[in-house]
């Protein structure tokens, strides 16, 4: 009782302490729901998913540079220049060596594309959980189409580097690439057949077309229906499905056929083409930071444009000054900024490529007048009105050769030459590449397995997928 009285006597203090306890105990559940960091989110809304797709650093700078570095667009100025190349990969790509990476890890030519595909897979995994309403349906579709289109674009960029050219006769036996379609990192996918890889790419594109808007987007890092048609056309051309390639080119050109008149292109500006220029339908570039050769910049004076290629340009061709700049100290020609607004190769989709596809496909089915008409429409914008000469009076073979030559000149430094070489050699063009260094001649014969780049060693070691034989 004594103790009880003491407690009662000091009831005020007890009460105070009790209150303290109650305050402690009454912390709400939400106390632990606070976000640990302001910047983080679990993407759940359409805006957040779009935020992932707007990540152009991941999605729009992923094209492998290997095909550019192995191509005949350029040459090293000397043996010494080649020796002092920035990375071993650049040296080895140039001479089509058996081992390209020399143990380099984290090869972005491979990893960047898959990183982008992972983004697309995550977007596609979250989308079904979002309820479609009349007010969000347009954005919903745009995002769905965007993710499907982007996955197709990235898969195709990978397959044209790491697999042989598409050949219907062998496609079900040729090795394609791993095609991860789920948003999980604990699953290793083996290489699918080349046929299955292309089937998936075309399937993705087919899903994208109806979801994407016909109107051209405000910013050309976002795809539109024209972009999907253009990509269809590019892929089908590389598969030598010329009739279909032409159909899709038509569809794209029906939406946009604007060309830039090179008479108005600055010859002094470091950035001759605007970021949202009229010709670009969809904007991407090759990987940034890993190599110097692909920088169309003066940082790399070890290389110059291939004299054989330069010889193909007419001296009045406005593309000479729009695409290249002379380094007065060395006499080397280096590449200026192209349609991509950063210092790497433009690898996206543009109307000029569609004109060339259309022209080539017409020529292949011997519609020569129409074919050359498309070619002349393009070339008219590449010469001054006074120096422009119409291409005419060629037979099928000469016309095709001229169109392919124009294709090479127009699409220079876009990583497409390598894909064209693979395709054209399949057509029997019999193009052999040679390099000479320090008295040693290196050659790359048509359909050589070295046209297919090795998969980086760390991928092989960690996933156990099959390596390409070179």
């Amino acid at each position, binding site marked *: 009782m004594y103790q009880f009285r003491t407690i009662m006597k000091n009831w005020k*203090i007890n009460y105070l302490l009790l209150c303290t306890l109650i305050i402690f105990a009454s912390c709400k559940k939400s106390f632990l729901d606070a976000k640990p960091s302001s910047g983080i989110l679990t993407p759940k809304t359409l805006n957040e998913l779009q935020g992932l797709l707007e*990540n152009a650093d991941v999605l729009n700078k992923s094209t492998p540079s290997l095909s550019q570095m192995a191509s005949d667009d350029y040459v090293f100025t000397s043996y010494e220049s080649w020796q002092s190349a920035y990375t071993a990969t650049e040296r080895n790509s140039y001479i089509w060596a058996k081992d390209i990476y020399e143990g380099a890890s984290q090869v972005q030519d491979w990893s960047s594309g898959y990183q982008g*595909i992972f983004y697309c897979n995550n977007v596609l995994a979250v989308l079904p959980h979002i309820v479609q309403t009349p007010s969000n349906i347009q954005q919903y579709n745009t995002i769905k189409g965007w993710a499907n289109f982007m996955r197709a674009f990235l898969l195709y960029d990978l397959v044209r580097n790491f697999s042989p050219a598409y050949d219907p006769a062998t496609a079900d036996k040729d090795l394609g690439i791993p095609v991860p379609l789920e948003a999980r*990192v604990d699953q290793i996918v083996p290489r699918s057949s080349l046929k299955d890889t292309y089937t998936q790419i075309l399937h993705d594109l087919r899903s994208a077309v109806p979801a994407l808007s016909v109107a051209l987007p405000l910013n050309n890092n976002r795809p539109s229906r024209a972009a999907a048609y253009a990509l269809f056309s590019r892929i089908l051309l590389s598969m030598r499905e010329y009739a279909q390639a032409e159909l899709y080119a038509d569809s794209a050109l029906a939406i946009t056929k604007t060309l830039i008149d090179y008479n108005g292109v600055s010859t002094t*500006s470091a950035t001759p083409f605007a970021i949202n220029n009229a010709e670009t339908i969809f904007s991407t570039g090759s990987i940034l930071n890993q190599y110097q050769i692909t920088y169309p910049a003066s940082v790399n004076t070890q290389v110059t444009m291939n004299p054989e290629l330069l010889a193909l340009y007419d001296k009045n061709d406005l593309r000479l000054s729009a695409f290249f700049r002379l380094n007065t100290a060395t006499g080397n020609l280096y590449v200026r900024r192209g349609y991509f607004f950063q210092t790497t190769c433009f690898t996206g989709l543009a109307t000029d490529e569609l004109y060339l596809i259309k022209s080539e496909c017409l020529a292949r089915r011997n519609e020569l007048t129409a074919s050359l008409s498309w070619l002349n429409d393009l070339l008219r914008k590449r010469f001054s009105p006074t120096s422009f000469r119409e291409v005419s009076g060629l037979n099928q073979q000469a016309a095709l050769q001229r169109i392919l030559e124009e294709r090479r000149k127009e699409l220079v430094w876009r990583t497409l030459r390598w894909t064209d070489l693979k395709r054209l050699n399949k057509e029997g063009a019999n193009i052999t590449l040679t390099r000479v260094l320090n008295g040693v001649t290196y050659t790359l014969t048509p359909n050589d397995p070295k046209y297919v780049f090795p998969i980086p060693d*760390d991928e092989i*070691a960690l996933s156990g997928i099959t390596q390409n034989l070179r």
Partner: protein
Amino acid sequence: MDMITPYALRIMLFLKIVTLLTCGSAHHVLAATFNSPVGAKNIEVRGRVVDEAGKGISGAVIQIKDTQRKVLSNAEGYFSIAVVNSNAVLIISHLGYHPQEFRADKVPALIRMVEYSGQLNEVGIVSTGYQNIPRERATGSFVLLDSALLNRKVSTNILDRLDGVTSGLIFNRNKTGNTPDISVRGRSTIASDASPLIILDNFPYDGDISNINPQDVKSITVLKDAAASSIWGSRAGNGVIVITTYKGVFNQKPMVSLNSNVTIGGRPDLYYKPQLSNQAFIGIEQFLFDKGAYNTVINNGYGSLSPAVEIMLLSRKGTITQQRKSAMLDSIAMHDNRDDLKKYYYHPSVNQQYQVSINGGGANNKYYVSMGYDQNKANTVINSNDRMSLNASNTVSMLKKKLEVVTGIMFTSSRTNVDGSAYNPQFPYENLADQNGKALAITRTLRLPYVDTVGKGRLLDWHYKPLDEIQNPFVTQRLKVTDYRINAGLSYAILKSLHLSGTYTYDKGLNEQVRRNGLPSYYTRDMINTYSQINQATGVVTYPVPLGDINDNSTSVYYAHYGRAQLNYDKLFNGKHAVNALGGMEIKDYQSNFNSYTLYGFDQETFANRNNTINPTVLYPAFYGSGSSRIPLNIASASTTDRYRSYFFNGSYTYDSRYILSASARKDESNLFGVKTNQKGVPLWSAGLAWNLSNERFYHFEPFTYLKLRATYGYSGNVNKSVSAYLTAQATGQSNLWNIPYVTITNPPNPSLRWEQVRNINFGIDFQTKANVLSGSVEYWIKSGFDLIGASPIAQQTGVSVFTGNTANMRGRGVDVALNSNNLKAGSFGWSTQFHFNYNTDQITSYKVKAINNAAIVLGNYLQPLVGYSYYSIFSYPWRGLDHSGNPQSVLNGNTSKDYSAISKSTNIADIAYSGTLTPKYFGNIMNNMSWRSLELSVNLTYKLKYVYRRPYLSNASLYSANSTGGQRYQQSDFDQRWQNPGDEMKTDVPSLIYPVNSAREEVYKYSTALIEKGDHVRLQDVRLSYSLSKRKVARLPFDHVSIYTYASNLGIIWKSSKYRIDPDYAQGIPLPKTIAFGLKATF
């Protein structure tokens, strides 16, 4: 004076607060006393044992001298004991207090026990941050560092004082991977934070540890095993360091203590790192020049070329003759850049420390007030820092001592000046000044001839003159840190044995960083010029970056609330059953905000800026080259929130001071992201057992007067908030090329994520010999980590290159031995030794992700740990010497090989060799303290044994990286030992230099066994000499006690196993210069 005035104001304010806090000491009548009857046989002696505050001490031992008869005081301190003879002597003792002896008939009614003032070699009270436990009652593993040991060292940072004197704790200098600065008992995590948890008084301290003035620290307890640390739950897996500050003393007249010292340190040893002679380096440049390696830069016209290459270029162009060229090269080779560094950049460091404190108390209150000021001038000309700290604590007891109120304030303000120009030489002959000491322009990112003529005078001067930047404050970088910690605590005795307490602490820290890049600075001129555009036709210059200073500002603020409600129950039943229990809950709410921005065209006078003239979305082409970039406004803001809600219980039961059982349990819940509420928490527990063998009646082993056995088992954890179970993305605030903001995936979904757990097992023996000649403890521990989060490379086809998740288990074992020996006490001479020996190993017991190949294992085992080996293992390519052309050779599938690419890609584990661990397996110290009259000398030797490091090597790649502008690539080892001619392979292991560089070849050498060195060494850590005088001895002394001391540290290695002139703790850097301190401490 300007600087001091604000401080003076703050001090006055502070003293006012202190006065308010220090309530008048109300006297209360002490409890009734009992007297002992005198004379007769078989008397009963009764009394009460109290502490300095008059509070009863329970569990004090009252023993009749030279017998085994003893009793314990009860909860209020009362005792009674039957004594046969009134001449018998009673010894009253309690751990943590000085023992007292009385004749049975002279026992006072109130025995006032005096707390240990914290002398070396004495066991005391350990603190867990929740309670103070007498050593005798503890089952867990604690290390106590008292003020005497902490004050032995002179340092600005309190944690530095643990180095080399703490059992089981090591400072990691040889860092790699995710290595913390301090480790307690090895390692038990992979990718999570491996640093110990730091507690300041009652709660975790989230501020900068350097804000704590070491002079305010009374003691530090390091909690090592589960029983000790599991009360801290999920953050205790790496051990806990509990810092306790002074709180004053009851019933003590005000005591003023003054402490002042100055520490002087030398310049860093610029000759420690080997480097190429100037001639040799120019030779390398000539070789590269002849190979055309500089042509890219020469051709672009603006890139940086060294003075030597400029001369070579003049010669190649025919501007100068061969003879002139040689003369010019010889002339630049005459200059050694290190002379400039010594003359202009480095000077001796001077650190000054002042502190004054007052402490004392009445019957019902105690207080401690201190003020400290530190001023440190670093050994580079600009870096300096000062710190002002104020600390006050007041404890009042009321209501017949039922209620105790503790209030405290800690305030720190520090300012740091950092060398903003950050001069780093690029060439060994780089010359900063002409003969008259006038600053010379050097090349940095741009070529000098380019800078001389660029813009034809229309741009700002683009020359870089480091000496100007060093000598003038063009760039100032100031960091201002203000930190407050306010705490309040109430403790109320509901019943005599039941106390309810509430504790609250508020922490706030403000960190302001301002970097002013004045217009004259190279940084600002370079920035403005780079963005400038000259209209070729009109010659008009436009400046997208406005003319004026550039101010980079960043501010971070954190604040934290900690609250705790706790019930303590302490009761002794029947004099034999002691129960001590506590339980309660606590919360932590920590938030931090970060903001940064840059102001262009800043005017120091008016504080006006011209940011509104900047268009941050435009990509401006650079003035040179073909790059283009936006003008960075560096506007960023971010916040983090860290919340915990925890429930805890800790109890112990002691039977007859012989058997002790302890148990603890804790549940932590945190605001983990993307986790369901029921997965936000983790329950952890521990149990322990101790046996005070020497208290047993049957114990008669004379040599050891004290012997205790103890064992504990339990779980603690680690927190890793960087991973989440769901897909997590981050809005970076950045925009893509089309000026649209985007988000980045930071964490792939991982539904199987779990909390990390660490299981601790500890066995210990504590002992003390007769007359305390030798005392100490031996402990054996096993620490096992489960579900540890690791970051391992995974196949890139998954879209990520690193997978972070629960991938590993690991186990550590070790032995901690701590011995204190009073070797000699002869008259006025005394000699004692403190000896620590620690053995620790760790081993990965399972790892879910397999290593890619041998290169991945050799290049960094901490990224891809191997089962069966330590996290800190070093693996190497076996060295098979050089071939006849100076090429390194290793092993491929058992055969000597030069296929470097295949060697690195090999997955044949037999092709690599285990070289040892990066952290020592054995470490400890031997400290000898000698005293003679008022003179004391203390010498500490530390040792680290059985570990290895890779010594610096001749890097072909670095030496031949012609266009590299950063780094000191002329600082290379073994240049003269390299293979040059056939036959050299018999004498040397240093490969020849080849061009172009083969990086795989270099890696095989760099990571070979040829470069593995044993780190074993013994170091003379520090020496302290002090002389003290006290008023008791010298009556004329104006102080009660005064001591002067000198303290020398970083004295160097006295033995090492390796023959190389390398300090194993600083294999890559430069060792800390020797320092010597002089100081004075007085109390009155």
